[in-house]
């Protein structure tokens, strides 16, 4: 049973994940309609509390909320009172006093959504915290793979790139292993976190080994500012050794799909043609992100009691 908040995939049971994915199927149908809107969350207020800027994720949550008829407020303390050194918890308490129905939090430091959830009454959705978790990204990845392969159980997933700094990697490791898939990670050694195998994955510094027989190849974004930390010699060397093109993709299964959380550094993580065409499913990931986030917002917010009954709760069968 999904709890009050969605802070990480680590906290979820397999049944919780399945329930979200099943709900997302219905939400995807809404997004196919001519009028992409249902009144489910009418009168509810969702706050996007983004301490770290992210146009894509914020837009995805905003669209998801609006398709459910919620009022969505964007709040980016980075550009307002945080400059005056207001503590994150003060920000949270201030927000709590405004009585939102759901708060979506993104922060550059791991653990902040959890601390905020401890203060807030409303459900908190983690939209990415440091190198910790990014649960809705993993859910949309699971949804996309399920859609493509018809199952998750028994699949081989290869995650390639800066695992050390990646919340997407951690959430996907939890998500895919919980759903019965096998996960391998590959990266230059400085980008493989210590004891990563304690999370139930196989780690390798050989791309070929990780990709061998994989059903899904997921490339992570390389942030060039990490180079300042000297984790890799250069972007060019990374592209040569861990960048995926059609030749390297041949190590994987013939029907392997290629994923990326975006935005892609073309010619670095993925070759130009792989970014745009099959077997890449990057745009499906983006599309599914809205459906999955609608499902999460609905499951966390739609069932909460509210002071005034909504005139119409309908429009959805789940």
């Amino acid at each position: 049973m999904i709890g009050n908040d969605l802070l990480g995939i680590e906290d979820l049971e397999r049944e919780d994940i399945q329930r979200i994915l099943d709900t997302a199927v219905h939400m995807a149908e809404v997004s196919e309609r001519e009028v992409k809107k249902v009144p489910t969350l009418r009168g509810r207020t969702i706050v996007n509390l983004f301490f770290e800027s992210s146009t894509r994720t914020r837009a995805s949550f905003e669209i998801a909320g609006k398709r459910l008829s919620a009022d969505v407020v964007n709040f980016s303390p980075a550009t307002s009172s945080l400059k005056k050194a207001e503590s994150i918890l003060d920000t949270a308490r201030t927000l709590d006093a405004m009585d939102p129905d759901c708060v979506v939090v993104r922060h550059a430091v791991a653990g902040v959504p959890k601390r905020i959830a401890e203060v807030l009454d409303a459900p908190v959705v983690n939209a990415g915290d440091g190198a910790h978790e990014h649960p809705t990204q993993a859910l949309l990845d699971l949804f996309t793979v399920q859609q493509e392969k018809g199952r998750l159980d028994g699949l081989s997933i290869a995650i390639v790139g800066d695992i050390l700094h990646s919340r997407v990697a951690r959430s996907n490791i939890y998500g895919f292993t919980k759903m019965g898939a096998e996960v391998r990670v590959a990266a230059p050694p400085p980008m493989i976190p210590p004891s990563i195998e304690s999370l139930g994955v196989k780690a390798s510094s050989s791309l070929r080994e990780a990709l061998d027989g994989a059903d899904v190849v997921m490339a992570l974004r390389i942030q060039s500012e990490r180079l300042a930390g000297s984790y890799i010699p250069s972007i060019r060397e990374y592209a040569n050794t861990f960048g995926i093109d059609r030749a390297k993709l041949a190590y994987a299964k013939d029907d392997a799909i290629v994923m990326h959380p975006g935005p892609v550094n073309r010619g670095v993580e993925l070759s130009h043609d792989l970014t745009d065409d099959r077997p890449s499913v990057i745009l499906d990931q983006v599309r599914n992100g809205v459906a999955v986030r609608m499902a999460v917002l609905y499951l966390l917010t739609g069932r909460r009691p509210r002071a005034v009954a909504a005139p119409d709760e309908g429009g959805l069968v789940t």
Partner: protein
Amino acid sequence: MSRILILGGRLLDPASARDETADLLLEGGCIAAAGSDLDSRGAEVIDAAGCWVAPGFVDLHTHLREPGQEHKEDIASGGRSAVAGGFTSLACMANTEPVNDDPATTDYIIDRARQESPARVYPIAAATKGLKGEIMTEMSALMAAGAVAFSDDGKTIMDSGLMRRILEYSRLVEVPVVVHCEDRMLVLDGVVNEGPVSTKLGLPGNPAAAEEVHVSRDVRLAELTGAHLHVAHVSTAGAVKTIREARERGVSITAEATPHHLTLTDAAALDYDTNTKVAPPLRSAADVEACRRGLVDGTIDCVATDHAPHAVHEKDQEYTAAPPGLIGFETAVPVVLDLVRRDEISPLELIRRFSTNPAHIIQRPGGSLADGEPGDVVVIDPNRRWTYDPAKGYSKSRNSPWAGLEMIGRTVATLVEGRLVYHVDRGVLVP
């Protein structure tokens, strides 16, 4: 001067290896006699039945925050918190504002302590001007003003050449140079021990090697210079091993461990509580085990709290932004008694590490219950159960990872210079 009789306790005096039930009489600020049927006419009596009676504790690593950061702590509140924990002498680090790097500041601290603190306060002066790691301080003048050791503590001196000269020069004054061993280039932005926990939390890791590399460097420099090196807050198995081997080679080296590094692992950080953020970080279970063994076998000479108060609003931040440190005076006894309860160390040997050894390292009186020694005494009830609430403690700050936990063992009474300065039922009795 008043007379105080501590009645019927278990006397633990490491200096004389005495461990027996006896009364202890204090008179004229000093230990007057131990035994039974003592002449106690006119003496105030402290009932110590079922309790341990030991030389007052000496804490070699504290941050009293005065001058300059009195919103976190001051010499008065720190001193009160210390005696409530059983500490009768404190060595305080130099990272005040201004830094304790000149005799006037040392003077000021000693003067304030004399007026305000129920515990004795011994300043540790900075090893370099402004803790900048550039120019060494005037050790002779600082010694003359009352400094008992030199340290830049958390501002680890990365310049090995300068460190060598500081150690060499310290032989002139013959006091320890205290080192916080963390290679800053290896720590980088690390805030939790690097390992499964940092991977799970997604917080930057601080590898054990950061400490181990630096301890190795400083041990070699101590060997080269013949100076007295004191390694602060040892936290890793590798550091314990390096120190043990150095002592076997005859290097002049002493070391301390904190209650938190002796009992808590990095798993304590799993819910992102910033009160678990400390430098060096809480380590793995194997590291904790090695530190305990090191304390037991004498590789680590003493327990020091690294009492480091920070205001609530300072800790109430992102894990990466919160300052490292925790308060430790009032919880040290029950926390470290865990080693006695698990039969790892005898009460007498534990007291040696709380009192006798640290007093010896800074060459100050204390650590003994012999007749004529200063009347610094602590009475401990090792079985008393209580719940720790930092808000009810004496420190101005509340940053404790043990808040709200049930404790076993408590300081019942503390005497400094033959005067009762704390009693659990009456609280701190001032100066």
